[in-house]
């Protein structure tokens, strides 16, 4: 569990990016504003984790 906690911030960013990419593929140019806002939040919400990725 501790090991998982160490990579949680990177997991959040990578999974968040993947979800946003799928959303972008489905919404096209119409969704660019929403996706930009969500991506901005994802980048800012990256929580500082323990200093190890392994």
């Amino acid at each position, binding site marked *: 569990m501790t090991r998982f906690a160490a990579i949680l911030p990177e997991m959040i*960013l990578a999974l968040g990016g993947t979800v946003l990419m799928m959303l*972008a593929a489905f919404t096209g140019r119409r969704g660019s504003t929403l996706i930009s806002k*969500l991506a901005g939040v*994802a*980048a800012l919400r990256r929580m500082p984790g323990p200093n190890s990725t392994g």
Partner: protein
Amino acid sequence: MFPAAAVAIIAAHGWFERDHEHSSEYAVLIVFAAAGMSVMVSATSLVSLYVGLELQSLAAYVLASYRRTDERSAEAGLKYFVLGALASGILLYGISLLYGFTGTMSFNGIAAAFARGAPSLGLLFGLVFVLAGLAFKASAVPFHMWTPDVYEGAPTPVTMFFGTAPKAAAVLLATRLCIEGLGPATDAWRQIVIFAALASIFLGAVAAYGQTNIKRLLAYSSINNVGFAMVGLAAAGPKGASSVLFYMAVYIVMTLGAFLCVLWMRDAEGRPVESIASLSGLSQTRPAFAAAIAIFMFSLAGIPPLFGFWPKLVVFTAAVNAGYTALAVAGILGTVVGAYYYLKIVKVMYMDEPAEPYAKPNQPLQGLLILLAALLVSPLGYLLIGPLGSLTDKAAGSLF
């Protein structure tokens, strides 16, 4: 790094929207690059170092050529990709040598191997190749050649991103690797870092003189600033590592502010303008905008009482305390040489005849970000010395 990525997303939205070429991929690519940077700076083994670096780089190659119909953007992307692939190859070769001679990928294991006695020739070659690969990513001299062309050709919000977050990530990764993984071989890597630092400071300062494009000028400024950060790295030890973190934190704010101003530069018809000559007489047509640019330029030059002075003082103090007074003196000389091209911009804005006025921007959020960055690098920034210093000391302390 992450606020810089968020600002790159927020600022780009208005910039691309104006030219009706905004699509969702941009923000997603920045998030992937941010994930890569996150892996890079928290890596404790050569494998995670490489995976993080490639995740960040692959997103960056696509971002550089984001404007598909623009020849310059495509050229920037291609150049970045080809030279980036070469740097990745050099880095991988170095990693394979380190692994071959130590039998481990972890930074701690490599440090233990170096601590066993005088390092073998193979280990030293591995160290040199890995540092060369990282120097490319941080655009330190002599691996800086891609920077001006890519910065000029890439869309301005992408250039703003390249000039801040990935550069900081590369410098922080180099610091982590040198202190944690190559700590016992400090005498070996310190010579390389000192050379790269001095070469970056002076080449960045001298090559910026003749530039007429503000993005190219800021590219050379970023090369110059990496040199100052490396002065802190050369000092090694907890104070040296802390000074690198402090320097990069303030550098990100100064560079973000400068690039946010460049994003606002548009002619009467709304087309982006990048020439330094177009700033002519800006103080008469747009005094607040000119004042903001002047603050960022003075701060990047390290002129007191602006906050940009303090991180330079911190890295030079770390170098002097580590016994590298000559390096600090050379760095101070480099600061004086480099100040010329920042002051040239201020001179153009305040002393030349007004050129064609810029279009009035309609981006209140971007204006707010410029104001915030200007306040942070103004003398008010000195209020942050305590909290920022304790944060960087704590982060640097975790490496020892």
